[in-house]
């Protein structure tokens, strides 16, 4: 029930890919897990001064639903999670939009990379 960086990355990946990308049906967890692992790898290679702020921001997003739902983002249903993500994407607070864009970019790039580069 506590916020977690890696669980949040997996949750964001699942939601973004399922909502945005063709072929990401419920059953393709192996590919989705590979995309999430790819994003975690990208995070670990970021410029060093950006890693901690992004990690904290991600944990913050995960924990932001605790007050209203009693559960972190990664434990919400896909529908609930997506509603929040859509709200954050449209936020007037640009750092929040930038965090979402970072994950959106890597998620769609990673997904279509899995599907097309690897012929999965």
């Amino acid at each position, binding site marked *: 029930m506590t916020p977690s960086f890696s669980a949040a990355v997996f949750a964001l990946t699942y939601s973004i890919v399922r909502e*945005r*990308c*063709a072929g990401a049906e419920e059953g393709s967890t192996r590919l989705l897990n590979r995309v999430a692992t*790819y994003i975690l*790898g*990208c995070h670990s*290679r*970021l*410029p*060093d*001064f*950006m890693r901690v702020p992004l990690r904290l921001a991600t944990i913050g997003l995960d924990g932001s639903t605790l007050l209203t739902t009693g559960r972190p983002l990664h434990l919400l249903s896909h529908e609930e999670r997506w509603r929040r993500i859509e709200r954050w994407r449209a936020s007037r607070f*640009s750092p929040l939009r*930038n965090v979402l*864009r970072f994950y*959106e*970019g*890597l998620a*769609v*790039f*990673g*997904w*279509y*990379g899995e*599907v*097309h*580069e690897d012929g999965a």
Partner: protein
Amino acid sequence: MAPEAASTSYRNGGAETVVLGSGPGGAVTACLLAEAGRDVLLVEEGPSLALGDTESFSRDEMRRKYRNGGVTVALGNPSIAYAEGRCLGGGSEVNSGLYHRTPPEVLDRWQTEFGLRDATEADLAPHFEACERDLNVSLLPAEAPPASLRLHSGAEHLGWRSIEVPRWYRYDAGGQARRQSMTETYLPRAVQAGCRIVPQTRARVIRREAGQFKIHCSQDTADGGQRQAEFVAKTLVVACGAVQTPALLRRSGIRDNIGRTLHFHPTIKVVARFPEVVNHAGMGVPVHQVKEFSPRIGLGCAISQPPHLALAMLDHPEALAEVLADWQHCAVYYAMTLGGAGSVTPLPVFADPLVRFGLSAGDMGDLATGLRRLCECLLAAGADLLFPTVRGLGPIACEADLAKIPPALSPGATSLMTIHAFSSCPMGEDAARTATDSFGRVRDVPGLRIADASILCSPPGVNPQGSVMAFARRNALALLEGRG
């Protein structure tokens, strides 16, 4: 094959000349000095990988051959995503192999504005010619990829100048193409001439003591750890690229006109959908560029494999799945501009420098003009739907829709990227605004030289690697002849 790397027995050694960085500037410099009989040690931060060790433009290549896995950003409003090679051979190993000479009008401007001497078109011609021979710069022997031809046909329809850009490729008797790079050309020659190469070694700081340079490095070890290493050199050539070179020099206390004038080619993209097939798996590098508005605005076609298409569709999420389902009818195009300026600042504690970049309202206007020209060209080429990387700007389907593009793009809504960085340590005789003299010698630090895109005075408006190699060759020969 990647050139053989030196054993770690050199880790506490040195050389008459140490070259930091093995991209086009460092590789050409190391090769020419070694072939002239100089004792040369080439230190590269990234791993030693052959050209064919990774698939071009794949995620694997980004992970293994790019700095920060290809996820680097210059902070600003808007922030600009940029990419740098980080492997033996540097950017030459990961780019499209497109080649340009420095435009003559750019050289004239550098002479006028920066006091750059001995760098006219005629002065540089022999250096360009030599590099072109060494890299087999040539036009495609067969037809260009269809997405590239679409751009060309749109420009022709409008009466705009469009060219096929030559590339660094070698063709065997069977017509099979092999891209050229530093690990295919200058680095094997350098090793053959006695140059020692030490990969996976990052220069952290340089000190000048008793007429010599001491280069303090951290070196990757086989077990994933790091150890300290130190090299000593009489002459030091820094060729770590337009971001890492000023970061290293500033960290080492060398700051005059260093790292305060970083320039990019800010680039905006458009995904275009055509009624006919224009894309296929493994489609070669697009080679056409529209030069009608050069150097202020350049138009071209980008790598358009599905992951790259998906990334360019981020501002149109509602159409992403539809475009990707139809990806063989779609390709990514770009408009490249010259504007803006930035800085490179090393941060205490952190290894990676902070890169900042700012664009004025006029620069955002140039990007809007570039975007409008690009859309005009693609519509003339027969595209039926265009998706610019601008949030809130809907798809463009006809000329009337071009009115939706504002006179200046909004910084908060525009997604920009670049693969060209330069001018962070400009060269010339105007000491008030340059970091080095006209031959890359850093002012007031005898024996220290720069040989990468940092010394280009301002944005060249074309891929800078041809310019980097020609200036590196000119400056290395001047060093050998005692002229510069």
